[in-house]
């Protein structure tokens, strides 16, 4: 073991924990990818009871509330957090933290439609007591350790990176309860970067907040106003949807539904006779590379949904009656997971930078161990004069 100064010990620990955090984070994502890839997909009309994987498109439930995001698009799932920058500490320990001053969320059920029918996705529904499952308890402990570690300065912050991944994913807007989401939205965006229309919609939703001067004043370019940022997380109507969780059917009573625009959307997207999705590559592939990217799929299908909803004008005239084959939620064994992409794009998103993270994590941990045993000074001398 080398004789290390206090600074070198700190460097060893930072490298070790940061590397460990990166590896944990990458392994957690890999575990999630493996679960997605290994689970065979079911079709809604023939889905068995218990743990299933479904894939389709999102649609508002009959009679359900439809929220609009800051761009004015209809959503089936919506979360909004308004955060204000605050300065904590003094002198060298001075740092900026973001504090949530307003949050809004909807966990109302919505539909997943595929070529064979409709399933009701119910984020708030849990069968049994999920808190009793081993996975939930491990995640709960990991979440507590993460919160504790993130308050321990630099060391804790970097270690908490990996633990967050293991604890169920970053969710700045608050705990998703018994379910988990992986959405392409949810990144913070500075207030100043929103358009005038978006700001108006957000202000309308947020309203007045006691003790907070919102919206910020533009006087002298907002120099003396608080700094705000907005985090929006949503699943738009018509968005590709991937779900796995616990599926339950009501074999006693057939539940049916009519929803504005669904018949038109289903006829555009599905071949009902073949019980399969149509190949719409020629419509969706805007850049002409022969492949439909995640963004192209999202934009194309949500556009088709908007067109169908506009055409229906919120009326049920001419709408087919669809059978709701079952309800999906969480259970003690299976946590509901919702993503706004289909499987191939979801796996690609989760695997992005995965190998790089693991490689970087291993390098940092080896570096920390070498530094611990050999000493950074010695390493530097060896590098300088081989």
């Amino acid at each position, binding site marked *: *073991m080398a004789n290390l100064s206090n600074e070198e010990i700190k460097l060893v620990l930072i490298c070790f924990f940061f590397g460990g955090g990166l590896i944990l984070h990458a392994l957690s994502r890999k575990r999630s990818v*493996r679960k997605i*890839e*290994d*689970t*065979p*997909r*079911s*079709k809604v*009309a*023939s889905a*068995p009871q*218990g743990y299933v994987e479904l894939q389709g498109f999102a649609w508002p439930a009959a009679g359900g509330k439809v929220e609009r995001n800051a761009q004015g698009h209809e959503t089936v799932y919506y979360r909004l957090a308004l955060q204000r920058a605050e300065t904590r500490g003094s002198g060298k320990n001075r740092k900026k933290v973001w504090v949530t001053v307003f949050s809004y969320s909807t966990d109302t059920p919505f539909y997943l439609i595929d070529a*064979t029918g409709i399933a009701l996705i119910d984020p708030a529904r849990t069968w049994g007591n999920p808190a009793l499952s081993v996975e939930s308890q491990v995640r709960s402990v990991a979440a507590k350790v993460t919160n504790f570690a993130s308050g321990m300065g630099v060391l804790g912050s970097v270690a908490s990176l990996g633990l967050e991944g293991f604890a169920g994913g970053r969710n700045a807007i608050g705990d998703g309860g018994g379910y988990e989401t992986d959405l392409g939205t949810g990144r913070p965006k500075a207030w100043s970067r929103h358009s005038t229309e978006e700001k108006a919609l957000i202000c309308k939703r947020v309203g007045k907040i006691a003790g907070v001067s919102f919206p910020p004043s533009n006087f002298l370019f907002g120099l003396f106003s608080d700094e705000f940022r907005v985090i929006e997380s949503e699943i738009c109507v018509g968005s590709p949807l991937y779900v796995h969780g616990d599926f339950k059917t009501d074999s006693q009573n057939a539940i049916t539904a009519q929803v504005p625009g669904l018949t038109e959307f289903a006829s555009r997207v599905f071949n009902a006779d073949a*019980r399969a999705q149509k190949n719409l590559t020629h419509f969706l592939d805007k850049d002409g590379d022969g492949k439909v990217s995640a963004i192209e799929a999202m934009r194309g299908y949500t556009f088709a949904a908007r067109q169908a909803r506009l055409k229906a004008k919120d009326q049920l005239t001419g709408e087919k009656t669809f059978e709701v084959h079952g309800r999906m939620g969480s259970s003690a064994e299976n946590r509901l997971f919702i993503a706004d992409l289909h499987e191939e794009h979801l796996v690609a998103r989760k695997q992005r930078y995965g190998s790089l993270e693991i490689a970087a994590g291993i390098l940092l941990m080896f570096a920390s*161990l070498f530094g611990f*045993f050999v000493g950074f000074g010695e390493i530097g001398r060896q590098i300088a004069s081989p």
Partner: protein
Amino acid sequence: MSGLVIFVLIILVVFAFVFMGIYNGLVRLRAQLERAWSNIDVILKQRYDEIPQLIQVVEQYTSYEAGVLKELAQARGHYGQARTIPEKIEASKEMSLALRGVFAIGEAYPELKSNQNFIQLQSRISSLENTIADRRESYNEAVANFNTRIEQFPDILAARLLNYSRQESFQASAEERNHQPNLKMNLPKFGQGA
């Protein structure tokens, strides 16, 4: 030296955890495969139970297609005797072929086609066939995942330890895809030949 020992121990512990993960992953895949098959089996059993009623209804309307009905009864018998998954898959394919022949009878004999019992049974069995087809896709996906994983390195090491081998998928045979039922099409005059 003690540093080297600690380093080697850490590496061994990491490998142990990795192997444990692979082992558990394979066991989970196997369990999913078995569950996917169970989900088909329950529907095959339901179809098996519907067939006697179907034969009874069809027999009332025609004695000219006894051969087709006999094929169906034999196929049902084979399924009842099947014990392993490959045997059940073969018997199920035989049943599907035989059922097509029986439903073709319905098309050829208008009196039968308009019989309410026949209509209900046909609808019920068609619905079951659709469910079997959907769950067959799901089962085949589970089989493909399993077969791929047990042949990849390093999972192949754990697969050998667990004595896992390739599984057969549930594919439609060429005969099932191309089969055209051979009906006698001798339509008796009303009141005759019953």
